[in-house]
């Protein structure tokens, strides 16, 4: 049936639109200097494999430092976000707690009213976080949306479990760590990855709050060397052996910033779509 074949060809084309850019990025990062120079910057397929660009980028300098900063912000930030969100969501999910309605509204209002760039900046400045790595974590640490989603999961846990645990003498902390968290492992890991991808990808906070380039996360480095095409110096990467082409170095940085996302992507795709759908599709 020609209709089906046309459909298949169109979808193949759409897939290639996504895949080919990645192919050329990875190829350029792995191509030898001579081939990159001959082709004028971008390579679709490397003649031989050269890991020189990765060696130079990872051997110290601004790029390596930015990578560690991004890793720190992602790991520590996700831990803080997940802990604060889960504890808040748990309190909001327990029936009979006085003031629960008011606390729930405190969270819900943040979903509708964004505070604005200028006043947020002034608050971050007031609490002394300008040029601090913590400005990349604390202002966006708790997402009201994630708290509401976690609360919905916690509400699904049968009340009898809470009652039984209480009768057995368990306190709230014990109920949370021994019953609620183990039962919600799947949803916690989805929300955790959600936060982690957000921290790894964050660019806005660094642009606004970090003036000191030695505290830049990886996304700012990508902007500087890949988007704005800045020149590499010995401060940025190890140039002692100077063997990789500049565009190979840029593409290696790009690959390094994409790889963590690709690693968690299969999990994200499976669970995140499911999570989105419970919220989006009714019935």
């Amino acid at each position, binding site marked *: 049936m020609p209709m089906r074949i046309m459909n298949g060809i169109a*979808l193949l084309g759409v897939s290639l639109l996504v895949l080919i850019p990645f192919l050329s990025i990875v190829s350029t990062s792995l191509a030898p200097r001579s081939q990159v120079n001959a082709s004028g910057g971008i390579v679709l397929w490397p003649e031989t494999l050269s890991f020189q660009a990765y060696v130079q980028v990872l051997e110290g300098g601004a790029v390596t430092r930015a990578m560690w900063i991004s890793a720190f912000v992602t790991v520590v930030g996700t831990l803080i976000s997940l802990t604060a969100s889960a504890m808040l969501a748990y309190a909001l999910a327990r029936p009979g707690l006085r003031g629960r309605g008011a606390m729930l509204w*405190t969270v819900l209002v943040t979903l509708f009213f*964004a*505070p604005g760039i200028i006043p947020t900046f*002034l608050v971050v400045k007031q609490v002394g976080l300008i040029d601090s790595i913590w400005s990349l974590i604390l202002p966006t640490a*708790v997402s*009201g949306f994630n708290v509401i989603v976690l609360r919905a999961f916690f509400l699904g846990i049968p009340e009898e479990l809470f009652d039984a645990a209480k009768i057995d003498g368990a306190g709230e902390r014990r109920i949370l760590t021994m019953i609620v968290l183990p039962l919600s492992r799947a949803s916690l890991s989805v929300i955790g990855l959600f936060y982690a991808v957000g921290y790894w*990808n964050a660019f806005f906070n660094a642009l606004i709050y970090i003036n000191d380039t030695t505290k830049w996360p990886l996304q700012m480095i990508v902007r500087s060397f890949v988007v704005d095409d800045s020149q590499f110096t010995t401060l940025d990467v190890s140039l002692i052996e100077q063997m990789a082409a500049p565009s190979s170095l840029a593409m290696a940085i790009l690959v390094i*910033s994409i790889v963590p996302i690709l690693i968690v992507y299969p999990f994200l795709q499976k669970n995140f779509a499911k999570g989105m759908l419970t919220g989006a*599709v009714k019935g």
Partner: protein
Amino acid sequence: MTSPSTTSPPEQEQLPGPDAPAAWSAGTRPPARSRKRTSTITRPSSVLYLFALPGLLLLVLFHYVPLLGNIIAFKSYLPFIGILESPWVGWENFTDALADQDFYRALTNTLIITFVQVVLVFPAPLVLALMLNSMMSQRLRQTVQAIVYMPHFLSWVIVVAVFQEVFGAAGVINHILRATGGRPLEIMTNPDLFISLVTAQVIWKDAGWAAILFFAALAQIDRNLYEAASVDGASRMRQLWHITMPGLKGIVIMLLILKLGNALSVGFEQIILQQNAVGRDASEVLDTYVYNNGLIGGDWGMAAAVGLMKSIISVAIVLGANKVAHIFGEDGVYRRVSH
């Protein structure tokens, strides 16, 4: 670990007969609205407030305090004396913004980009979902889905960098053009192409994601409807129009309202990343206007005034659109109180 506050106070247990019922109803009976509770044992303890505290503090500090900080829209902010001490100026910041030519340029660009994105970005995932839906092989379909969904998780910095590698001066397209003797094209730096460029980027990044939402809605449509329609002689186009489209109405309306709520904030990160390349005339939108005039230019009060106007109009649009959806019997973003 036992929590003392959850067990019944001992004096109540030792109360003499006649007083006992009163004591129970006053102290330990659950309020009528909390069903099936019979003792204080299972009532949540006040330690939960401590659990809620870190999260609430962060929300208050970085959401509510800045919301209050919007008062600088009515002040002439002087950094060295702080927000509270800065003098009030009434509506001056607002009238200043409304008298600024650049503000109207930013507003116009924002509205044009939103309009183009609603018209173009909306149908793309719909078509993609329909194409996926009519694909026979389950395995192939999941592969394509996984590929087109992936860019959604990349940051804007990376998406812009990827576009640069393809369309930039030294990119793949120009590489092929030069190799075949053609003239290189200026795509990333051409102000006239900017709106098409940002729209293409949004489609590349998020069409797969939106398609998944549409695709799930398609899967909920009763297969029998299609069978019945084809028995009655309905063509594929008629089935699409009378069965598929109504089945997608709910999700389309929901995404449309969300898009309208963001009508005034077209991708700050995406645009600020490319502003140097095309210049402010073509690329200034409301968010970059606030950033450039406030954080860069130091005109704090006026920038905050523009930001405040933007937030209020955005909330009004969402609530208004949702109201309209309810009037037409749709759920919108949130459901009406009666499910």
